[in-house]
């Protein structure tokens, strides 16, 4: 068995919807990466790998790692950058360690959307011939997904809105998230459409932030003084870019990714296996589709999870106890933030948002229009 690997250090910046205006991007990265090394009790030269994930257009420079890699401690180290969602930095770092050539990797991702026109950048990610001109972007893609989901399952108006109410209530317990106002169901439903049928409050608000981890082999962590979190399995997958080729009411790629992760972690019944999940809720519908693809419930039944309180803190399977992206969405690095939050839960370090007795958690990252691409991790405080 190649797994488990060990997460030996965790750090996050605060997540600010109003922007980290007093910090340059490289300061935000440096402080977060330094804190992750401190958390693991390691110096910069004690890691033999650095893996980062970031987006040129969010960072506002092409080949942005020219500047940012060294802020992430890569100087003279073996560093590689995933130009992909933050979760993929952890994927690549884990692969590196599993080759046996590396023992300890710093893993980092960040986003500072306050300094970039994110919606425009997301429009410019579309096929330039057919899709850019009609205004496809992340919100429009998600709206098409939401429509397909509602049509398929006859989901009512309140289905996704309840996820917003829940996650924002959770977010109020998370001191890393810039204070978020609690909302009532009616307020969500009364908010204007961002793109039908998505209400503005159902779309995650962009926030500046960074997350960093130290990933190590088990053998390496024997001499580290940390409460280890075991990475017991991971999976990732994409599907077609073309929305017309996909069943937009489901996250087919996440189903595949989860199958791979569960197989590695020997999880037979995902609905009963986790004490909490941190999933990418780029829109409220993302959480519904993710819960179904992850096997927490049957297709179409995620609505009931939100309605019954199952996914609220205190419920059977709290989803996004951190408040999720719906409280603060560090657009490109959200997946690594989800992992960091899951780690804090498993270490009992989650403060007011702590899920009591959490031993096993799932973390998920997602990118592309309507959830084209996914990565999922099974994390545990226990080795097996």
């Amino acid at each position, binding site marked *: 068995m190649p797994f488990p690997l060990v997460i030996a250090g965790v750090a996050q910046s605060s997540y600010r919807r109003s922007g980290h205006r007093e910090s340059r991007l490289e300061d935000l990265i440096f402080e977060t990466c330094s804190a992750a090394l401190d958390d693991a009790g390691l110096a910069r030269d004690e890691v033999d790998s650095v893996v980062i994930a970031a987006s040129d257009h969010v960072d506002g420079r092409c080949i942005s*790692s*020219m500047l940012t*890699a060294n802020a992430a401690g890569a100087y003279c180290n*073996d560093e590689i950058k995933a130009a992909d969602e933050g979760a993929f930095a952890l994927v690549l770092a884990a*692969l590196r360690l599993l080759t046996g050539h590396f023992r300890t990797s710093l893993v980092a991702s960040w986003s500072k959307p306050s300094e970039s026109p994110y919606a425009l950048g997301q429009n410019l990610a579309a096929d330039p011939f057919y899709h850019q001109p009609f205004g496809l972007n992340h919100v429009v893609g998600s709206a098409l997904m939401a429509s397909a989901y509602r049509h398929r399952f006859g989901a009512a108006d309140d289905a996704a809105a309840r996820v917003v109410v829940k996650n924002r209530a959770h977010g109020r317990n998370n001191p890393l998230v810039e204070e978020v106002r609690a909302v009532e169901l009616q307020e969500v439903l009364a908010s204007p459409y961002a793109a039908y049928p998505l209400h503005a409050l159902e779309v995650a608000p962009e926030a500046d932030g960074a997350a960093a981890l130290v990933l190590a082999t088990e053998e390496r962590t024997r001499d580290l003084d940390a409460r280890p979190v075991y990475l017991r399995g991971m999976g990732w997958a994409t599907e077609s870019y073309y929305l017309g080729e996909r069943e937009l009411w489901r996250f087919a790629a996440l189903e595949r990714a989860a199958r791979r992760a569960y197989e590695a972690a020997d999880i037979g019944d995902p609905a009963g296996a986790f004490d909490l999940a941190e999933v990418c809720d780029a829109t409220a519908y993302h959480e519904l589709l993710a819960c179904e693809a992850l096997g927490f419930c049957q297709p179409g039944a995620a609505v009931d999870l939100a309605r019954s309180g199952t996914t609220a803190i205190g419920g059977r399977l709290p989803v996004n106890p951190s408040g999720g992206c719906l409280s603060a969405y560090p657009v490109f690095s959200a997946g690594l933030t989800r992992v960091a939050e899951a780690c804090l839960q498993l270490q009992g370090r989650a403060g007011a948002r702590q899920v009591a007795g959490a031993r096993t958690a799932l973390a998920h990252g997602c*990118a592309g229009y309507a959830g084209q691409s996914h990565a999922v991790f099974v994390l545990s405080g226990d080795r097996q």
Partner: protein
Amino acid sequence: MTVTTAIIGVGQTPYRFQTPELTWPELAQEAARRALEHARLGVDDIDAVVLGLAPSALVGVNEAEKWAAPAVGAAGKPYLRVNTGGATGGSAAQAGYYHVASGLFKTVLVVCADKVAESPDAQHVLNAPWDPLYEKDVTLNAINMCAFQAVRHMHKYGTTERQLASVAVRSRSNGARNPLAHLRRPVTLEEVLDSRYICYPLKLADCCPRSSGACAVVLASAEVAARQCARPAWIRGLSACTNTYYMGDRMGPGAELDHGDCDDLALAARRAYEMAGIRDPRREVSLAEIYAPFTSTEIAAVEALGFCAKGEGGRLAEAGAWDMGGELPVNPSGGTLCANPISATALVRVAEAALQVMGEAGERQVPGARVAVATGVGGSLQFHTCLVLAVER
């Protein structure tokens, strides 16, 4: 632990100035198709896909890997993108290696494609990485950044413009034998020396062209390689090294790694050689495919790879040590000076090195090639990748 990994298939499109008849995903797909055919595999036999795309601004579509996912056979599969600037192709090959060597996957497709000359001006795009307050306005770009390196090498070691020119003469002579090369017309020493200055000391013929094209390789575990391929190119060593962004920090009393040399590449090479068990690279390496977008870059890289001492690279280049038939052929494909589809270029080096150890390099074959080195360089000459491929496992 480590699963022994090989390259069992290589696919390249011809490299040209522009390919207006193909979209960027179609271009990537063409290389992928050729690599699969070479590996005698179908797309369903591939377990995971890695895409290498450097600044997507050259292609003009953000996160264009998402757009290309179905074209490169990634739909329904594990898929991710890497970007380390010019080193992207080397990083993509290394990422592909991690997939297989980790034991999680048996066959992985690595694809890189670029359309450099279909942006309004590549050097406008390559001005965009620099500091917006201090550096962009002085029109810093890939050419003058490398010219600084060249000047420093000349200052430190007395390297001459004639020695630089000899690198172009050899590369273009090699490129004439490579049917895929973008520039296939040989040049004389006089022609190079008489070509106009682009940025002192680099003249037009010292510089790479802007190319469109794609490259793909199939990596496989030893078990699959033995079944699919009579003579796989075994990956024996690999490493990467990231240097500081600031070129000024690579000069002067406090500098650890000098901008005039490729000390960062030397660090990566040392780790890759150690993994491959290579002690005397000049004797043990049969050929090298070096990512050198300018003649001067190759001279410093040859030194960093341990083929000669620092400062000797220019003299030995002029003396023909790295010619075909010379002591250690460098860039038998014609190298980056004959084609530079930026995102793909470092993977082209890996692909060409693989073809050499597979004995399938055609007219550009180095007879009896046993061990080949492939490098990539990106950023402010700051990201370096190095792979060692060999006939023996």
